[in-house]
């Protein structure tokens, strides 16, 4: 079954108030086209789950700047002072997790389990007493799985069954989120017919993917950020 959708139709499935995972670490893997369409359609009261908040004027930051985000579940927003300032003013709720713990919470949901035990941050302020579990003489922190209503994913290549291949450092959270959300929307600049990939090269099997949006071309959002080029 072809999973091809138009950008408009794919994003129209997302209601206000939805919990949405967004792939990407910095720019690589950020589904800018899906995000920009979500800005255009204007759904509000969103809870977003992403490693970071991108940088001012780009990607996830646009949704925050446009007042569409109620809560951000993330690991690091140090490159986005505007979001830090908004958080300090109480304009957005921000929940921080250790990066690998956020990844593992998503991975756990994506594999159909409910939680795991860890010692990361166990004696820090991110741990509450009720999160602790004593088991056979050792104290652990219980981390619950984290799922979402939707995941927005950028894939370097896809076929219309939803098989995905990622590129470079754009893998990051994408294959984990693609398994952890109820409805997975993928954008790709390179969509082709099944059979184009060697089966063992597929990063995310199509079973996890609901919609594939072909992109005509990649906008400047996806290009080199000049201020990150070392001179």
């Amino acid at each position, binding site marked *: 079954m072809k999973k091809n959708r138009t950008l408009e139709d794919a994003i129209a499935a997302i209601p206000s108030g939805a919990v949405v995972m967004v792939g990407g670490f910095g720019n690589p893997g950020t589904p800018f086209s899906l995000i920009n369409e979500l800005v255009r359609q204007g759904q509000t009261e969103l809870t977003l789950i992403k490693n970071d908040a991108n940088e001012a004027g780009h990607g996830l930051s646009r949704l925050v700047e446009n007042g569409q985000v109620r809560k951000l579940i993330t690991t690091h927003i140090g490159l986005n002072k505007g979001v830090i300032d908004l958080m300090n003013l109480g304009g957005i709720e921000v929940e921080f*997790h250790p990066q690998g713990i956020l990844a593992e919470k998503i991975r756990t949901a994506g594999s159909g389990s409910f939680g795991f035990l860890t010692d990361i941050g166990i004696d820090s302020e991110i741990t509450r007493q009720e999160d602790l579990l004593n088991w056979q003489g050792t104290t652990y922190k219980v981390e619950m799985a984290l799922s979402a209503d939707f995941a927005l994913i950028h894939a370097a290549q896809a076929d219309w069954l939803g098989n995905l291949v990622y590129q470079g450092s754009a893998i990051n959270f994408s294959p984990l989120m693609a398994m952890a959300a109820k409805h997975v929307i993928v954008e790709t600049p390179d969509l082709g017919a099944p059979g184009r990939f060697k089966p063992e090269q597929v990063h995310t099997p199509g079973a996890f993917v609901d919609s594939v949006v072909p992109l005509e071309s990649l906008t400047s959002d996806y290009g080199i950020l000049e201020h990150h080029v070392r001179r």
Partner: protein
Amino acid sequence: MSAVERILSRAVKEITPGSIVNLGIGLPTQVMHYLPDDFDVQIHSENGILGAWKQAAPAEMDPFLIDAAGAYVSLREGASLFDSAVSFAMIRRARLDLTMIGAFEVDAQGNLANWKIPGKFSPGIGGAMELAQKTKRIVVLTTHTDKHGRPKILKTCRLPLTARACVSRIISDMAVIDVTDRGLVVREKLVDITNEDLQAQTEAELTFATGEASV
């Protein structure tokens, strides 16, 4: 040499051949540029790279390949790319030999605070808790004092901690200081400064190793 250059040129000597090293956002990621091109090391970047290397030439720069700080890195022969769960499995399973990391505050017990200044600047945890808690050796790179001239090397951290008793060594723009059972021990001075003046810019009590190297 500027304060930053003093820190970076001393920090690069901490990297031993054959090791796996993570360089944190800020000063540490810049250490890579001080490594000789043929140096035997694998740089781990927590966004999913083992074998990251110096910025590619302009024609080869790949917008889909960055380090954790957003710099356009290249890949060395033998590099691998993976998702964030695998990247942090590598960290939590202690496969990294060394992490160099920045600090808001570091103290005499080796406690580290670098993720939250309540109400002011809270960049977030990123990979820091897992790196600090699980890497075999943590070296903090920091200016000796903050931009107001106040000490960053304290008796006890006041900000929310990233991890407890995790720091082995502090490299500042003034000195190389080890965290030991007997407190902080100055191993080297990187500027021409008396012991008394160095102590005056440090809240924690310093011990001076006999015969410490000076500039």
